[in-house]
Structure formats: structure tokens, C-alpha cells
């Protein structure tokens, strides 16, 4: 099926997306989903210890959709997939809101898992979105992580 790709400002419910996705894929035995959600920081970021009060995502309209399309085509060439859904937010993100949702449908669970993780890893290094965090010290653009580059690169050598 043609992948369902959306780049949107509006919040969405990941469970509702998963229900819709599985309903449109009744012939797929395996459904994998991943959601990156805005942590309810409660003062500070668990991972970095930084205090964060707000987050905003800048994006490149047009290219964002196009890159996500390209990534889904790449995934479909690598694994036998029945369907893909990607929803990516931009704009102001509130705590506990979903930022990105990726779902894959396949006959086999290994393919569903691999493709979903591949899409997340590549999306993080290819899709034109930029995060900006606001804390007591002001607003700062988040720097890209080396670890994201290397997570994406490991797919180059495989399969």
C-alpha cells in the first residue's frame, strides 16, 4: 500500500494511529510501531540532566515530506513490507505529546522490526527537522548526536 506520510503541527494519538494502521492491513500478521514522545521533563531531562521547559521543532516544508517518502521507498526495497506509516510533528511540542510515529506492517515480525528501526534511525539523520530547547538559561538548538550518525550507518553495511 502507498505509505501514509504526514508532517503536521497538530498533536496526534499514537494508539489511534496504530488502530487505523492495523485496520488497513488485515492481511499482515506483524505490526511494529515506534513512538518518540516528548518527555514530561518535570524540571530536567533524564538523559542530559538539563532543565527544559519547552521544545520546538523547525522543519523544511516540502523536503521533509519528500525525504520521508524516499526513506519509505528505501525500506520497501530492503524488506518485504505491506505498509508504512510515518507521522512527524513540527512547531511547539508540549510534554507527553508524540513527536514522531513510525509503523510497519509485514507478514513476518523480523522484517517489521528491522524496517521500523531502520526508518527511525535514518529519519533521525536525514529528515530535515531541527529541535530547539528552552530552559532557564534561554533557548538553544539541539546538536546532532554522533551516536545517531553511527546508528544510521550500520544499515549501510547490512542487507
Amino acid at each position, binding site marked *: 500500500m502507498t505509505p501514509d506520510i504526514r508532517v503536521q503541527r497538530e498533536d496526534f494519538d499514537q494508539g489511534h494511529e496504530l488502530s487505523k494502521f492495523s485496520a488497513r492491513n488485515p492481511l499482515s500478521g506483524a505490526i511494529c510501531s515506534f513512538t518518540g*514522545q516528548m518527555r514530561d521533563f518535570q524540571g530536567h531531562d533524564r538523559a542530559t540532566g538539563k532543565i527544559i521547559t519547552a521544545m520546538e521543532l523547525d*522543519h*523544511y516544508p516540502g523536503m521533509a515530506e519528500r525525504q520521508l517518502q524516499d526513506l519509505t521507498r528505501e525500506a520497501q526495497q530492503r524488506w518485504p513490507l505491506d505498509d508504512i506509516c510515518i507521522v*512527524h510533528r513540527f512547531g511547539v511540542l508540549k510534554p507527553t505529546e508524540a513527536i514522531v510515529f513510525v509503523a510497519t506492517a509485514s507478514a513476518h515480525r523480523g522484517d517489521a522490526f528491522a524496517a521500523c528501526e531502520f526508518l527511525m534511525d535514518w529519519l533521525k539523520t536525514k529528515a*530535515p527537522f531541527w529541535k530547539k530547547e528552552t530552559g532557564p538559561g534561554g533557548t538553544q538548538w539541539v546538536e546532532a548526536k554522533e551516536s545517531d550518525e553511527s546508528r544510521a550507518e550500520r544499515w549501510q553495511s547490512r542487507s
Partner: protein
Amino acid sequence: MNILYFAWLRERIGIGEEAVSPPDTIQTVNQLMDWLSQRSAGHAAAFADRKLIRAAIDQIHSNHSLPITGAKEIAFFPPVTGGLA
């Protein structure tokens, strides 16, 4: 030719978009950055460290050494940081 800036490049330059007509001698992304750097102090600051900058020619990720001939839209931005976790 339309130039787009995102994230901190837009903030340093002060605009998100500008239409420019570089001379024919400007043939690569790198040369375009050199040329744009002369437009203002903000441009110069934004393009100071090329290692931090990524470019897209007509919405496709591109190396700094690629030719810009015929391009309609060239975008400059830092490495992407979408998704989460």
C-alpha cells in the same frame, strides 16, 4: 535562485529565505557559501564553520562540492535533529 535557511542559520542571518542571482563564476555549493558570506555580517557568521553546515539542492541532500547549475532552491541548515530518544 531561492536560498533557504533553517534553525540557527536563519537566526544568525536574520531571514529564512532570499532570492539571489550569483554570477556564473559561482558553480558549487562551497562557492555559493563564499559568495553569500559577503552579503552581511550575519551571513559571514552563519557560514563561518562549514563543518556545521549541511546543504540541499532542490530538496536533496548535497555535498558542498556539488555543482549548483540549474538549481532553483538551495537550502542551508545544521545537521538534522528530528525524532526523539
